[in-house]
């Protein structure tokens, strides 16, 4: 049976499933680095997120009396992976489950399922968790191979106990096994009147470590290198276009460069901004989420610039140390408007 008989009668062969799988593949380097740095904690976190997301998608589709076939398109699994990569290594298990349910149920299915959500589901869930549980969401486990770790993250039973019953179950306090992220550190130091350069010196910050990922942070955000590999793969495969990542990163870099030149004591350098926090993950994987970003090239450029301005502003003046997630979420709201005003010039008009 053929439902539609209208031309064209050949197809390029691209599919939603292939798109989702390619993004999951692109996230693999970051996922591998996260397991290298955070051991079983990262593995458990990623597995739990992906399984919960897929299960939530399946259950909500069945509850709505819809066919469960969309579960197979891989979008729920991708949401789970993205959410996991933006979480700190140690989060209580129920918080992970709650976040995954929020992502699929509130972030996606309530809007009408795939293709209808206004916000990136993983990002929306991440923000809801951040504002609901600010303490847990900003405590960063000291990664392996960085400084002295008080807990062996390659020990499966320790990690499982930690996730299920908290740090006390393995005889540690939370403070003993955590450290501040570079962005968080300069924010707290600035509030005490200590300048950026000074703060970074006391943090023992190195650009190379930040590039490779040997620093505290969300499990998938630390390694700029791994994320760039994935991002370049997506660009080469034409899954994403260059417009959003390039304009986003360029805007942050330019703003940072200008203000860093004017007042280096207060404003961090462009390279620090690019390598810090979730910027690269957001630029290549969150802001480029097709559903919640503009469809036209011009629109994507506007979107990227908007994200860049907001990210830098929130980081420099906001209450939170990291602004990339908020920036993308806020720009998501503007997408219908951007789409309307940024249409390309039609042939002959």
């Amino acid at each position: 049976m053929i439902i539609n008989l209208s031309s064209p009668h050949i197809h390029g062969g691209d599919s939603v499933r292939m798109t989702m799988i390619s993004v999951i593949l692109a996230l693999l380097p970051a996922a591998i680095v996260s397991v290298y740095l955070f051991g079983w904690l990262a593995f458990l976190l990623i597995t739990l997120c992906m399984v919960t997301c897929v299960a939530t998608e399946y259950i909500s589709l069945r509850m709505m009396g819809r066919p469960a076939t969309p579960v197979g398109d891989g979008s729920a699994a991708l949401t789970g992976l993205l959410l996991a990569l933006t979480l700190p290594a140690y989060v209580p298990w129920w918080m992970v489950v709650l976040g995954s349910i929020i992502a699929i149920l509130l972030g996606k299915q309530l809007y009408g399922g795939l293709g209808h959500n206004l916000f990136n589901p993983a990002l929306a869930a991440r923000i809801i968790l951040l504002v609901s549980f600010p303490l847990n969401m900003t405590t960063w486990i000291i990664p392996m191979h960085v400084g002295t770790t008080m807990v062996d993250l390659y020990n499966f039973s320790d990690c499982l106990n930690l996730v299920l019953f908290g740090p006390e179950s393995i005889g540690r306090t939370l403070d003993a096994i955590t450290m501040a992220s570079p962005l968080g550190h300069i924010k707290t130091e600035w509030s005490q009147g200590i300048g950026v350069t000074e703060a970074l010196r006391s943090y023992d910050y190195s650009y190379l470590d930040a590039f490779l990922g040997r620093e505290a942070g969300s499990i998938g955000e630390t390694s700029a290198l791994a994320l760039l590999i994935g991002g370049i793969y997506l660009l080469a495969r034409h899954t994403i276009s260059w417009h959003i990542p390039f304009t986003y990163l360029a805007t942050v870099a330019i703003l940072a460069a200008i203000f860093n030149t004017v007042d280096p004591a207060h404003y961090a350098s462009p390279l620090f901004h690019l390598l810090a926090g979730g910027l690269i993950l957001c630029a290549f994987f969150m802001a480029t989420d097709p559903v919640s970003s503009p469809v036209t090239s011009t629109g994507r450029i506007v979107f990227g610039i908007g994200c860049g301005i907001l990210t830098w502003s929130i980081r420099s003046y906001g209450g939170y140390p990291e602004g990339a997630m908020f920036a993308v979420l806020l720009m998501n709201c503007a997408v219908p408007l951007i789409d309307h005003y940024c249409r390309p010039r039609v042939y002959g008009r």
Partner: protein
Amino acid sequence: MLHTLLRSIAERPGIFSGGIEPEMLKITAGSPIATPPIAPIYIVPIKQHIGEVCTPIVSVGEHVFRGQKIARSQGYVSVPVHAPTSGTVVKIEDHAIPHPSGMGLPSIFIEPDGEDSHDESLEAICDYRGRDPGELRERVRVCGIAGLGGAVFPTFIKLLKDQRNPIETVIINGIECEPYLTNDHRLMLEKPEAIATGLDIIMHMVGAKKAIVAIEDNKADAAEAIRSALNSLPDMEHVEVRLLPTRYPQGSEKQLVQVLTGKEIPARKLPMHIGVLCQNVGTTFAISDAIIRGRPLTERIITVSGDALPRPGNVRARLGTPIRFILAQHGLEHFEDTHLLHGGPMMGERLKNPDIPVVKSTNGLLAMHSETMMKAHKVEQPCIRCGHCGVACPVSLVPNLLADQCRNDQFEKAESYNLFDCIECGACSYVCPSNIPLVHYFRYGKGQLAQITRAKAFADISKERSEARGTRIEREAAARAAKRKTVRTKHMPKPVDEKSSEEKSDISADPKGDGL
């Protein structure tokens, strides 16, 4: 200002925005054009072009010669239809034509006598350079030539030597960017001299100084053949054969003009408004046939191909040949699990039955396996707004937004998003990862909008008419009242008749009673 700036940046020759590179599958490129035997019956629809329907001028039982006019054109945008072979008219009745709706059109059924004798009433014009362009143009019209690239717009209309819009450049379109189709390719290989002559005739008719023959680089042999044919003609130094990189839909008039001249055809304008005339190679060949040999259009080259066809090839098919007959010549007699396509796979329509005849717009016949079609027509999934459709669109629309509007019946909004600029090339549907039949939505939207416009025009006319009627009734009533007044004043001095005259005027004052 910004608009003009953007446009001047965009307008540069050599490229068109968007486009796709589908697998070309030109499996018949090496098959010489075959001439099939005479079919047992020919079914000639009385309209095979864009424009007004023709009127049959033969009656049942009448004998006709090949090339004899059997239906005369009516109106300006129309060309006559000719008999494809000599024989007897057996019936004139409605028959299905290649149209997605499966709709019928009056058709003339001709039973061949096997002689295939020509109607020789048209003289051959070999000294066309010395003839008046108007005379040649009339010949092109009389010979029933319409654009054989697929649009079948009456060709003579485009061949006008217009002082207001002088043609500077003639473009001969040998792009053939649709997968599978090789009819133009074979024609250029086998009849390059006739095409060169046709081009010379066209240049003389419109007074053009320059010409470009555009061919895609997967047909380099055809370009070579055309080049050497042009060299053998005098005064052809301003004719250029240009090899272009293969890209769909480069053969579309708008895109080809953009690639070759760097100019865009303004919206709702024709190529002649920017001094360009585009002709397909098949049409060019038909023009040369009509002038040099005095032969009306009774046959055309078609590619018979597809993955379900045992022996694909190119044929010189007479207009009116039943498609079933042609496919049987290529080894296809049973149509289970097979879908027939009229035209190429990107823009062709699916035929519901094989008894439909070949018409002037038939550039290809494809027999496809059901599985192949199933692969291309998967169940639609939600749009993930990836924007690939917008990248592929050669006219820079935003197809996914347009499709949303058409699906939600927001037709006015779709129109403001330039729905009518869509050329229905199918590039958006081809790249869509969600298998959304975007072009289908656009056709639906265009159809609905056309209906809305018609309904609105009808309502406007009705309103105007009813208003006119109202003013007419008022005017008549006023006229009657005035008349009554004069009659009254005339009869006033006679007080005796007062009562009777009042009664009379009461009757005439009733407009309804009067009007009926």
